């Protein structure tokens, strides 16, 4: 049942496994749900294990269940359901007895009549369809035999809930936005615990020694100081402007909270040539050679840019767009220098991967591992940075 839904979910990148699906089937077979609403929440609780995928789930749900009729039109279906003797098994003894008292057809005709007459929501009455009353239509009421219509909490249908897509902002594959900086920051925390295990863990040592009947046994642990040094190089000017502000916010915030041992950031335009700049207007220059000489290899380097330029800017001597930046080394040679000098480098690209087939992007991808500037991409990039060589 609903097997296609399973595949739709996977197509929409929700990581559902067979075991979880079987759990859902088990829950369905026990008869826990009575409406599409219940199914929506049940399936979500069992199949989706992170709020980052709630939006993907909503999209898949809409896709699969579109065209489901809204509740007021199902009176026909109620009647058919009740007529089927097999379904009577689901009712208790009393309910069955009561059904025999009220003739089904009569009840249904009444329902249709009142649906036409009633124009607004009504509570606690004996005639209209509403809540908490003694009328046979509505819910949370006192009438012994009746039809349940709607549900607690306003009765929004599952389709409408899925259409609202209220979890859109929790997705991890949208381009980084200021609202998601906090979530992205948590991804950077992985850059936190590195360094050799060179601190003596006193409690554990005593414990281990005692367990060893007095023979000294030393237990080590990693010190919590952040040994990570970060170098951030950002492409500025033109199409990169909105992203630059975001990146500098992100990384400065990271620096303030996780306190990297050293954090430096510089700007460049399109590609790195003989100079990098300390400010966005590119007036305060530092020579790239100086950077390479003074920074040790164990800096983690993150380059942010769209890697998009005329091939001559990358490959030619004097290729730099600005006349005053007469570079003797082609841009690509500089990039290779950086990749060779620093042990860990990654390139973050705010453009979507559809645009990564341009010639300059391809060339740069051969030098640096390139990731998207989304939370997912950031997490992958960070994993790449902390891997041991």
């Amino acid at each position, binding site marked *: 049942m609903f097997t296609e839904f399973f595949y739709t979910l996977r197509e929409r990148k929700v990581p559902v496994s067979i075991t979880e699906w079987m759990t859902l089937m088990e*829950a369905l077979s*026990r008869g*826990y749900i009575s409406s599409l609403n219940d199914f929506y*929440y049940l399936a*979500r*609780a069992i199949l*989706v*294990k992170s709020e980052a995928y709630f939006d993907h789930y909503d999209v898949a749900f809409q896709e699969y269940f579109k065209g489901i009729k809204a509740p007021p039109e199902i009176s026909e279906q109620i009647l058919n359901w009740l007529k089927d003797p097999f379904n009577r098994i689901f009712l208790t003894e009393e309910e069955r007895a009561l059904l025999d008292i009220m003739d089904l057809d009569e009840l249904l005709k009444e329902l249709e009549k009142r649906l036409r007459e009633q124009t607004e929501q009504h509570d606690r009455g004996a005639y209209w369809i509403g809540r908490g009353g003694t009328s046979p239509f509505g819910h949370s009421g006192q009438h012994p035999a009746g039809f349940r219509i709607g549900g607690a909490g306003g009765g929004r249908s599952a389709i409408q809930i899925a259409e609202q897509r209220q979890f859109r902002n929790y997705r991890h594959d949208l381009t980084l936005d200021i609202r998601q900086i906090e979530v992205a920051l948590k991804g950077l*925390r992985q850059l936190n615990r590195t360094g050799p295990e060179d601190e003596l863990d006193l409690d554990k040592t005593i414990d281990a020694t005692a367990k060893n009947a007095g023979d000294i046994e030393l237990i080590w642990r990693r010190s919590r100081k952040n040994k990570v040094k970060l170098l951030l190089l950002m492409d500025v000017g033109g199409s990169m402007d909105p992203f630059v502000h975001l990146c500098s916010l992100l990384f400065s*915030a990271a620096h303030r909270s996780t306190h990297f041992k050293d954090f430096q950031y510089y700007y460049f335009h399109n590609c790195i040539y003989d100079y990098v700049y300390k400010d966005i207007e590119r007036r305060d220059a530092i020579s790239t050679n100086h950077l390479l000489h003074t920074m040790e290899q164990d800096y983690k380097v993150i380059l942010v840019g769209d890697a998009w330029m005329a091939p001559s800017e990358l490959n030619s001597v004097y290729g730099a767009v600005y006349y005053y930046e007469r570079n003797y080394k082609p841009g690509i040679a500089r990039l290779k220098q950086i990749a060779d000098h620093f042990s860990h480098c990654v390139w973050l690209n705010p453009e979507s991967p559809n645009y990564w087939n341009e010639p300059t992007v391809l060339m740069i991808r051969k030098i640096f591992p390139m990731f998207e500037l989304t939370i997912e991409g950031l997490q992958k990039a960070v994993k790449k940075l902390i891997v041991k060589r």
Partner: protein
Amino acid sequence: MVNDGFDKFKGSHDYVTSEALRNAVNVAIALKRPLLVRGEPGTGKTLLAHSIAKGLEKSLIVWNIKSTTKAQEGLYVYDTVQRLNDSRFGDKDISDIRQYIKLGKLGEAFVSKEEIVLLIDEVDKADLEFPNDLLNELDEMSFYIPETGETVVATHRPIVVITSNAEKELPDAFLRRCIFHYIEFPDPTLMEEIVKVHFPDIKDKLLHQALATFYSLRKIDDFRKKPSTSELIDWIRVLIASSTPYEAIPTEIPFAGTLLKKETDYAYFVNTFMKKKQTTKTVDSYETPR
């Protein structure tokens, strides 16, 4: 069509729930799986477990996880040092190991004579491997103590509620076994209900002004830590206790220190909204802004 065993949890009188949450809890209870609850800090994850225990009238065992917690601690602890000490200095009978085996929270939950609710609070604080270490015990509801040779089996399967602050990613194998629920930040309607539970006699105007101010503060992205539900409750308590007139709330935002807990946030707030020199005393709600 609703099964007898289902739909047990309806919320308790002092904790307001949403339909999705009630559903998730009932599913977890019915399918006998742990319930994993995530959400922003201050949205009531820990309170949920208390509410479940109250609503189902079962007792609650709380296991607060620290960054140094190991899975073994939850099962049992064998106090070797005490035993060594007793053998040398004390005159207790040390031949019975059972005296030195102390059951951890999970062990306590297993040996309990009736069904109880077990809360594993802030599971993501511990090491990455911690949830995986517990997988086997949570599945089979039993564990083996080699020192005494006995196997502790749960007489009744406890209802396990696990909370996480989403600081770290939890391992996949662990996630597969859980029922998941994300507690979103309450929208204004739900928030009103929550406040009314805590302050049943609150005046409408005060409530609406406070809520409006609160949500507008939350819209400001420059705050490092946005005010959350528990802070709102504290703030309203202060506002009521100080008899602040409701007109003063949106214009002056008195007692902002109850809402904004980070120094940078409070400094930003003072500089931008109050245009006064930054002081350490709370803003007097009767002073008019210059």
